[in-house]
């Protein structure tokens, strides 16, 4: 349960008052409950600190309606049950002390009502209703009973151990003195961490924009070649889009479409030939599809270097049976037989690589019409 501590009308940190406001009972009873539990191995103190940590910051006190007496009785019974339960599980240090503390604190709480002029005046006044009269009566009996048991058992406390009392008082004193400071320290640490995370995010965005968009804009301003400007802009556009819409790594799995787009984008930049990428379906990048990317990369580089075409296309299609990657240019084309024997690009980088990975490569070219490199990897 979360609640707000009180700002005014409090004894320590406003925790008991806050709980009282939330439950709708008088703060005196909540304080009495804490005091009583304090005599049970200091449980009250621990609960108080826990409630302090769990509570929200203080706000101006709100007017809380007092609960009807039926609910007050219910809460009282619940508290009594809690005490009995602690007794049952052997946490009962000394019946006399606990009962004395309970009788005294609840008694005081009952007869001191902040809303009435004074306990005795209220008792004498003819306007006081019967509920208040009963309350005052019970409070008085409790108080007297408490004082009597206390005087009877005061000797036993010293028997029980002055050392225990001393340690207990010292601990309590330290908590009261340093509790708010510890609490503030914890708060500050949390705020600092949140602020640091925000700063890091901002820095990441700024760094990304600086490394990519601003650099590209600078390059475009210094360039007077429209073709180069267009390629720079295309490259930046696809990169920014990937970054903004997260089409890059998906759940930590790199996708074949992304790998191919990145490769195409790099070759576009290196050779200044636009590459139109169209993908249908997708597949995670694994060892075999890495071979596909490498072979496609070689095919694109070849097309950029030798075809003379002013653009090319990269097509990926994944269906149930196979992955197809096709690099198409509508440039010069070539005659396979006329390629010098020492030029091993096609034979090794494309065909051998695909075969080794369990796929195949087919090259269709017509001189003067263009070249298609068709890569197929069965699934």
């Amino acid at each position, binding site marked *: 349960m979360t609640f707000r501590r009180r700002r005014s009308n409090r004894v320590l940190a406003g925790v008991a008052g806050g709980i009282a406001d939330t439950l709708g009972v008088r703060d005196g009873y909540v304080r009495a409950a804490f005091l009583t539990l304090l005599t049970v191995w200091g449980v009250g103190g621990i609960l108080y600190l826990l409630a302090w940590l769990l509570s929200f910051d203080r706000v101006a006190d709100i007017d809380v309606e007092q609960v009807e007496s039926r609910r007050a009785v219910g809460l009282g019974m619940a508290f009594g049950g809690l005490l009995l339960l602690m007794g049952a599980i052997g946490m009962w240090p000394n019946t006399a002390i606990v009962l004395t503390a309970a009788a005294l604190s609840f008694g005081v709480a009952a007869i001191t009502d902040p809303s009435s002029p004074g306990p005795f005046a209220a008792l004498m006044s003819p306007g006081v209703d019967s509920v208040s009269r009963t309350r005052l009566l019970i409070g008085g009996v409790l108080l007297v009973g408490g004082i009597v048991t206390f005087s009877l058992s005061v000797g036993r406390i010293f028997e029980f151990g002055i050392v225990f009392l001393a340690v207990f008082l010292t601990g309590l004193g330290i908590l009261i003195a340093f509790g708010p400071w510890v609490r503030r320290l914890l708060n500050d640490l949390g705020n600092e961490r949140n602020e640091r995370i925000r700063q890091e995010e901002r820095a990441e965005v700024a760094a990304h924009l600086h490394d990519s968009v601003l650099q590209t804009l600078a390059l475009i301003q210094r360039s007077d070649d429209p073709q180069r400007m267009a390629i720079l802009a295309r490259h930046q556009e696809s990169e920014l889009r990937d970054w903004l819409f997260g089409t890059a790594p998906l759940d930590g799995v790199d996708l074949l479409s992304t790998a191919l787009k990145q490769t195409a984008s790099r070759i576009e930049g290196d050779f200044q030939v636009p590459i139109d990428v169209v*993908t249908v379906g997708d597949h995670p990048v694994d060892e075999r599809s890495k071979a596909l990317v490498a072979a496609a990369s070689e095919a694109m580089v070849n097309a950029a270097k030798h075809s003379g075409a002013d653009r090319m296309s990269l*097509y990926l299609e994944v269906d149930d049976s196979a992955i197809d990657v096709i690099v198409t240019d509508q440039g010069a084309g070539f005659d396979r037989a006329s390629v010098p024997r020492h030029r091993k690009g096609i034979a090794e980088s494309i065909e051998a690589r695909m075969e080794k990975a369990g796929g195949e490569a087919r090259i269709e070219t017509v001189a003067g019409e263009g070249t298609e490199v068709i890569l197929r990897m069965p699934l």
Partner: protein
Amino acid sequence: MSISVYLVDDHRLFLSGVRAELSEEFHIVGSGYDVDTAIEQIRGYNPDVVLVDVHMPEGGGIAVVEAVTETNPDVKFLALSVSDSAEDVIAMIRAGARGYVTKTIDPGELSEAIIRVNAGDAVFSPRLAGFVLDAFAGAIPSDDDPELDQLTSREKDVLRLIARGFAYKQVARKLNISIKTVETHVSSVLRKLQLSNRHELARWASKRHIV
């Protein structure tokens, strides 16, 4: 008489660029950079072809296509966008656009696309062809009208070649068919795209709360 064209785009810079490129060949009747103005003016001018941007505030290009088609069914739309998002483009086609080209298209190809749309044919850019193949991929036809829910293997062949950047003329030659046949296949795909109840298409659209 030259084809009358109306332009809709919320980027004024782009608008003026396209206007300059097209004004020699076509009769540019007007242009609008917001949805409401565009709808009103298109209804008034009743142009042959409207070039419309997919992404715009207040409903975007889809709102324009839907509103105008209700009153002026003869106006033909060609969608033009930098958008990569498949669902937006498919939704635009389903709303009634007869084609989709990206803004990086060169002016000559754009002119060709306008002429083709005006003639009642469909214009599939490589990217749109890819989207369509993707949308119909691995399809299990529904019971209502299985023919609408699947592409024939010939239609797929045509779309694949378009996706790889071949012009209709080159597609025709590679498949040994006439250009007219290529156009028929593409128009048939467009019809399926607009009428199909395919689960995938509906899902694409619903992801963006459109249609």
